């Protein structure tokens, strides 16, 4: 039954994704783009200002920056917390992988 539910979920998702573009098309013609300008006047100089400035100037660059920094931050935080756990003395290496 769980399998059947999984299949149901998969099927539902498939139907939804197939018809989604159609749904949007039916909704009407495209309206104007929404442009967002970040208010850098409210951000003092530093890292925050750097991000806001690149956001306002070059979105593609901003996208690249965010991707790389997020990935590195994830790895860094993961390594740090792993170390902390090891110091405390909780053994994480022997655990079973529990997925689902």
């Amino acid at each position, binding site marked *: 039954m769980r399998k059947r539910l999984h299949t149901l979920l998969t099927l539902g998702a498939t139907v939804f994704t197939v018809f989604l573009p159609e749904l949007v098309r039916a909704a009407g013609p495209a309206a104007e*783009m929404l442009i967002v*300008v970040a208010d850098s006047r409210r951000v003092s100089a530093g890292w925050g200002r750097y991000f806001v400035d690149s956001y306002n100037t070059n979105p593609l660059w901003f996208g690249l920056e965010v991707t790389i920094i997020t990935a590195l931050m994830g790895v860094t935080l993961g390594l740090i917390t792993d170390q902390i756990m090891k110091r405390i003395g909780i053994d994480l290496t022997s655990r079973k992988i529990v997925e689902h």
Partner: protein
Amino acid sequence: MKKRFCLYYISCVLTLIFLVTPALAAEVAQGKTVTNDTKTKSITIEEYDINFTPQNKYGNPTGKTMVFDLSEALIGKEAVPGDIVRIAYKVVDGKNKVIRIMNVTRQDIMKK
């Protein structure tokens, strides 16, 4: 394990190099549209300050007007006189060249 750490540090260093490349800086101005000429592609606004209050959530008028060149700008919803706009611009040869312009009044994305 060592190899992975090496890779990790190399990528960290590369990121730092990548980040100290010339910073992209743009000025930002916000204010009420006075005129918006689509033919000459220029917009005049009355600048607002950043003293936001519940009564004036877009800031208070400073009385100063600024003229911007929209020829290379990324424009969303067209601004009509009276709209509050927020503009990211660069000063090139004494001209305020707009990079992108946001129509704060008409695209209240906060509500969605």
